Structures are given as C-alpha cells and as structure tokens.
C-alpha cells in the first residue's frame, strides 16, 4: 500500500531578486500563498507550509500548519527534508511558492502518475528536460538519501532528482511550472490574470475551439468560470491551462458570433472564440 499523500508549500525563500515576499504577491486579487494552498488542500490528506523559524509568527503563514527546518540554511531541500522527518510515514507533494500558473489539472496529472515504489515522481522541465523538483512527490524512502545528499554538502534538489530513481512525466500544460523571480516577471504574470477587475465576479463563459487550437485544446468547446476581465486575460489563462501554443498576436477574437477587440469586457454567458490564422478558398 502506498503512503498517504501530504502537501508542502515551500514559503521560506528569501525572494532576493523580487525584493518582496513572493507568497504575498497577488494574482486575481489573492495572495499566492492562499492560491497555492487552495489548489493543494483538496488533493492531499493534510497540507503544511515550510517556513523559516523567523516566519512562524507571520500572520499570513500562521493561518496554516507549519513545519520549520531541522537542518537550517539548506534551501528548499532542507524544507523537504524537514517534512519527511516530521511525518515520516507520509509521501509529500512539494510545491514551490512562486508558481502562479500552476493548475489543478497539473497536480492531478502528477498524483495520478505517482510511482510509490520509486523515490519520487516529478515532471520533466518543459524548458530543459531536467527533473522539476519543486512540483514533485517525494516518497518516505527518499528521506535517507536526501539526508546523505545534504551531508555530502549538496543542496540542489534538481541535481538530487537527476541522480535518484525518479518517475519522470511530460507536462501536459508546458507553462504550468513557469516561476516568477523578478518584479518584471511578476508584472507580466500579474497582467495575465486580468487584475483590473479581478475583484469582480466570476463569469460563466462558453469557449469554442477551431482548427489548430481545437487540436491543441483536445476539445471543440467547454463552459468555464473565470475571473478574466477581457479576452486577453482569458486567453492567457486558457493558453496555460489548455496548452494552447499560438500567440495572441497571431489570433483574432470573436465574442457572441462577432469579431471583437481583445480588451472588450467579458459578460456572464458570453461565447468566446479565438480564431487562428484563416485559410479559406
């Protein structure tokens, strides 16, 4: 029988390049910490934050169960090690705190493909093909090799996975694990979540897909709920969650069977179609 699955959100990073706590960065009006925990909680038996000792009293973090490092100053591998020590019978789904594009489908893919007889289950990075350690499942048996790895003076969890017996998966949504390190990256990502009216209501939208986008999305239509304020924000959301690979500047938009502007506000019940380059005649 496989070990129960717990969740661990890594929140102890120093956010040096961002110069702001990345877990407090808001997308769609919600801090990343709350967004990530909301994704994680329904999928695991228990969920925790990995924190530095000096973050224990942080009000944002104090709302959740927390685990502090056993071996300090080791970076994320120290956080993973602490969780494996704290609940040794559990496997841990570990998430970095700076993955705003992560979606439930990606986590479900990881959990469905979990290989409990191996040390870990992880995605191959869609950027360089190497194991992606910060959205991965670490089995209880990984604790001893991780301890040995740290004792040998190593810290990089990616290198650890590259040398371990790991189940490696292909990401269905290639952008789902893109992380945010700098203020410029945040500004860009932030814009893609339709921030301007993010506090507004969610809308039910019907999306229809044609031609190349239909094949990429693997469906011809769907009904979704979204905070996206306009077609631009909606396309950013869908291109991440559905793996759409055409760029917005290559597409046109139709709303309710009429050509529309990318910035036209969306309304409840709208039908939205992204039109790939046409080729009639």
């Amino acid at each position: 029988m496989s070990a129960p699955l717990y969740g661990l959100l890594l929140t102890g990073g120093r956010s040096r390049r961002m110069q702001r706590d990345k877990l407090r960065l808001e997308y769609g009006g919600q801090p990343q910490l709350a967004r990530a925990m909301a994704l994680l909680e329904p999928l695991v038996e228990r969920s925790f934050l990995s924190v530095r000792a000096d973050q224990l009293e942080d009000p944002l973090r104090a709302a959740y169960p927390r685990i502090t490092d056993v071996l300090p100053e080791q970076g994320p591998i120290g956080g993973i090690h602490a969780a494996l020590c704290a609940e040794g019978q559990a496997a841990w789904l570990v998430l970095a705190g700076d993955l705003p594009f992560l979606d439930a489908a990606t986590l479900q893919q990881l959990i469905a493909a979990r290989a409990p007889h191996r040390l870990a289950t992880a995605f191959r990075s869609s950027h360089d093909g190497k194991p992606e350690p910060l959205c991965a499942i670490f089995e209880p048996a990984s604790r001893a090799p991780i301890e040995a790895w740290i004792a040998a003076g190593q810290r990089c969890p990616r290198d650890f996975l590259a040398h371990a017996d790991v189940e490696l998966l292909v990401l269905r949504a290639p952008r789902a694990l893109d992380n945010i390190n700098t203020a410029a990256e945040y500004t860009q990502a932030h814009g893609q979540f339709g921030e301007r009216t993010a506090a507004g209501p969610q809308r039910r939208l019907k999306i229809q897909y044609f031609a190349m986008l239909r094949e990429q999305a693997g469906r011809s239509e769907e009904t979704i709920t979204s905070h996206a304020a306009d077609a631009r924000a909606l396309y950013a959301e869908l291109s991440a969650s559905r793996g759409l690979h055409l760029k917005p500047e290559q597409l046109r938009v139709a709303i309710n069977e009429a050509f529309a502007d990318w910035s036209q506000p969306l309304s409840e019940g709208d039908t939205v179609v992204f039109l790939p380059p046409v080729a009639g005649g």
Partner: protein
Amino acid sequence: MSAFRFSSAALDTAALRAELTDPGCGAYAAFEGWVRDHNEGQRVTRLEYEAYAPLAAREGEQVIAEAISRFKLRGALCVHRIGALALGEIAVWVGASAPHRDEAFRACRYIIDEVKHRLPIWKKEHYASGDSGWVNCERCAAAAADAGADAASSAAHETHGHDHAHGPRR
C-alpha cells in the same frame, strides 16, 4: 437563399449559375477554387475545411453586400465547401452578374480575396508523406514555439535558480 453559404456536398455549378440569370444583365463571371495536388513543395492528397459557421456566414454576406454596392451588381453568390475534399473538387465557387463584364470580373476577384482573408475558415492539408498541416497556422505555431524556446532558455536559467534553489533561503 442567402448569398453566402456553406455546403458539405459537391457543388452543382449549373444550379448556382441559374440562380444568377437575369435579363437585365449583359455579363456573368464565375470563379472556381479547386483542390490542387501540391502546396509549398509538398504533394497534397486531400483537404479538410472547418469553419466557425455563424460568424463566417455573416461576414460572407457582408462581403457580398459590399461587392454588390461597389460594382453595381444585379446578383452575386458564394458557396464554400466544408468537411473532407478530394483532389480536383471545387472548394469555393463565386458568381456575379452585372449589366457589363468589367464589374462582373472585378466583383469575383473582390469576393474571393475578401472571403480568403476575412472569413473564419481553416484548411487542413494532408500530404503524401503522411503529414498534415493547417495552412497559415503551422508557421505561426513554429514561431510561437521558437519564441517559447528563447524565453525558455532564459527561463531555464531562472528556473534552475528559483531564488531559494541554491542560495540559502533561511
């Protein structure tokens, strides 16, 4: 009958032409677009057309209304095939009738050009090699992938250096 239509069956050009006959017209011109056996160096074996039909039909009507007013036509019609087509079939048919020939010729040219550029219709070519591709989309997809790869090479650097990946985060 609307002046722009889709058809999933082979076109009956004699019947379409008959819709445009008019004693006030001294000229009738038609254009037929055919399924060709090659494109951009590849041998094409068959085609599929797909359309966002409600929007394409509305835009097609608009194109024909523009042609009628611009060229003082007495009648104009365009029918576009949808679904699977074999080599040699008529993919699109345009007909225009007018008092004089110049307007009929120019109207056909206007309608087919606008239909190709404006209507949400997509063409998938199947090649003798076994490959297939969406015309006008594949290059965009490749360009998007290249741009993604460029972003990825910088992102890969960043990703490997998740702020907390190497430096002590505590």
